[in-house]
């Protein structure tokens, strides 16, 4: 499959009064055509910053890309100027934001907000753009689009607005769509509708999607592959099956264990990961997760773990995969779901030294 996006050792930091916050600390991943990659992690893990950096939407300054490459169709985005970015944003890569209540301009007709993209990127005239905007509204499942196209966002419900946002994002048929928690602000039935719509449109348009969320239920529903982020790094990455049925990183275990399931309702207390994420102005020495990790080894506090490869597609950044590490079993609720995957290598292979 054709690689559409390659992020290589991306580092992003923000200059604040308290010092330099290293929000993203060496993230690497790639994305194929038509594929959906979910990035999961708790608040402050750097998932939104990573995705917004791909479109260079983070405010610079105070934000700064301190290292790495973002290859989009083989072309590095990092050194591109604002002017060059304008031809990429909305046309090649577009974005859907978390809160549909605030991400549309309240004083501009919904149709006009869609037309802007068409006029800018597809050189349409106003009439053509309006016709196309109406079609797009119909495509995203908004009834009576002829009437809706001249309405203002406050006349739309939350789910409708997110549909309109999707219409804006897909107006110029981008190759990559970044969805930053697109269903977090919606209620559950609407969430399901929006997810279905996104999947349907992805199949129609052959768009790749980066889906940012902290809802693992959503991940299982939409993603092909999953990247788990913690403290500005990807700690585990693999296919959905690998992450859900054969997780290797203690942080992934923690996330999965804290997911409510239908089996353990009354008796078992819902597990939580103790503590809070580290302060990224001074990232801790060794493994950033060590302080919250009940399985932490002595070396975790000393040296950052390297990346191990478990299968062709499965990577995890933990010392537990080292040949010398003691045998450790994940928590019981995670144990129950583990399956033997045939694609795994015989032994985890060390692929990249930690620093």
């Amino acid at each position, binding site marked *: 499959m054709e690689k559409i996006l390659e992020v290589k050792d991306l580092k992003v930091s923000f200059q604040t009064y308290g010092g330099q916050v290293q929000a993203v600390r060496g993230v690497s991943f790639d994305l194929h055509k038509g594929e959906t990659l979910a990035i999961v992690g708790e608040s402050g893990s750097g998932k939104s910053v990573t995705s917004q950096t791909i479109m260079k939407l983070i405010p610079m300054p105070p934000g700064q890309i301190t290292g790495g490459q973002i290859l989009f169709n083989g072309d590095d985005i990092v050194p591109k100027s604002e002017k060059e970015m304008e031809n990429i*944003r909305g046309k090649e890569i577009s974005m859907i934001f978390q809160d549909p209540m605030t991400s549309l301009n309240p*004083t501009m007709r919904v149709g006009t907000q869609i037309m802007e993209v068409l006029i800018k990127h597809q050189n349409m005239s106003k009439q053509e753009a309006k016709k196309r905007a109406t079609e797009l509204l119909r495509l995203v499942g908004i009834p009576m689009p002829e009437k809706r196209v001249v309405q203002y966002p406050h006349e739309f419900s939350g789910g409708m607005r997110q549909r309109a946002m999707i219409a804006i994002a897909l107006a110029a048929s981008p190759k990559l769509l970044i969805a930053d928690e697109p269903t977090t602000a919606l209620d559950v039935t609407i969430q399901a509708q929006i997810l279905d719509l996104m999947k349907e449109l992805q199949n129609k348009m052959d768009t790749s999607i980066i889906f940012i969320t902290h809802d693992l239920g959503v991940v299982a529903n939409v993603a092909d592959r999953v990247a788990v982020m913690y403290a500005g790094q990807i700690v585990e990455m693999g296919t959905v099956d690998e992450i859900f049925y054969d997780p290797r990183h203690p942080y992934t275990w923690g996330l999965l264990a804290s997911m409510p399931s239908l089996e353990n309702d009354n008796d078992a207390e819902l597990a939580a990961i103790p503590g809070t994420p580290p302060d990224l102005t001074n990232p801790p020495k060794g493994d950033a997760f060590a302080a919250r990790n009940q399985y932490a080894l002595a070396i975790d506090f000393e040296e950052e773990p390297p990346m191990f490869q478990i299968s062709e597609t499965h990577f995890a950044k933990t010392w537990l995969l080292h040949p010398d590490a003691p045998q450790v079993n994940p928590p019981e609720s995670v144990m129950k779901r583990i399956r033997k995957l045939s694609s795994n290598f015989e032994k985890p292979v060390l692929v990249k030294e930690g620093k």
Partner: protein
Amino acid sequence: MAKYIGKRLLYMLISLWLIVTATFFFMRMAPGNPFTSEKQLPPEIEANLNAHYGLDQPWYVQYGEYLLRILKWDFGPSFKYKSQTVNDLISEGFPVSFLLGLEAIFLAVAIGVLLGIIAALKHNKWQDYTAMIVAVLGISVPSFIMASFLQYFLAIKWGIFPVARWEGFMYTVLPALALASTPMAFIARLTRSSMLEVLANDYIKTAKSKGLSSGAITVKHAIRNAMLPVVTYMGPLTASILTGSFVIERIFGLPGLGAHFVTSISNRDYTVIMGVTVFYSILLLVSILLVDIAYGIIDPRIKLAGGKKGE
């Protein structure tokens, strides 16, 4: 919409009646009368004068007659300027104040909004600091000092504009500048803070993610949303500027309406006080109505009550 405006006009009449009544009675409560002066008038003459102007009638008759006259847009004769009615005073002075006021409002809005936008777009850069220093100066330097500065440099030293009097367009520039400086500074600060707030909104990020240039984002998405506070301020500003400024008109020797506000009170010139107050109130009420209508046009979420359409 027509229903809404009709309702508002009715409220305006009620407000106007309250203003007229309050002014009428407060004015009468103030010690002295139009004929108080250093020279004591003989009692017979004062009685004659009172009879001539109807001041010898009981207060409710005077009040009733006054209300009736206002309905006919007749503010009565001036007590101090013999042979002139208040209507004459207003129709002489208002065009001057009006023209000057329009110029000042135009300057204040154009420069103020521009400075505010530049300051917000270049937040915490030198452009921002410069604009805000200008704004602080404009707010803290009183208009009469500004006026004297303008006269000294632009008129006396460099001779670009005439110093004073009212004989043509060139004569309006300096007083308009002096009049505009404070509201301009205020509008600049208002625009800046409101723009900063708008620029932090999610929909600005959405606009950026569509590939719009920062110019297009500012013009199409930010300014309109940032204008509401400025429009709010425009209501009272328009009324107060259009009716003229006593100080500025004095300094530049202009025959505007502003002077009558002040002198009529110290003269106890009852009819002029009333007339000028009523006139000012009408302007204020109309400009507030216009502001409210402008809200509805700028922000579609603000539905003008009255028409239940769309709900």
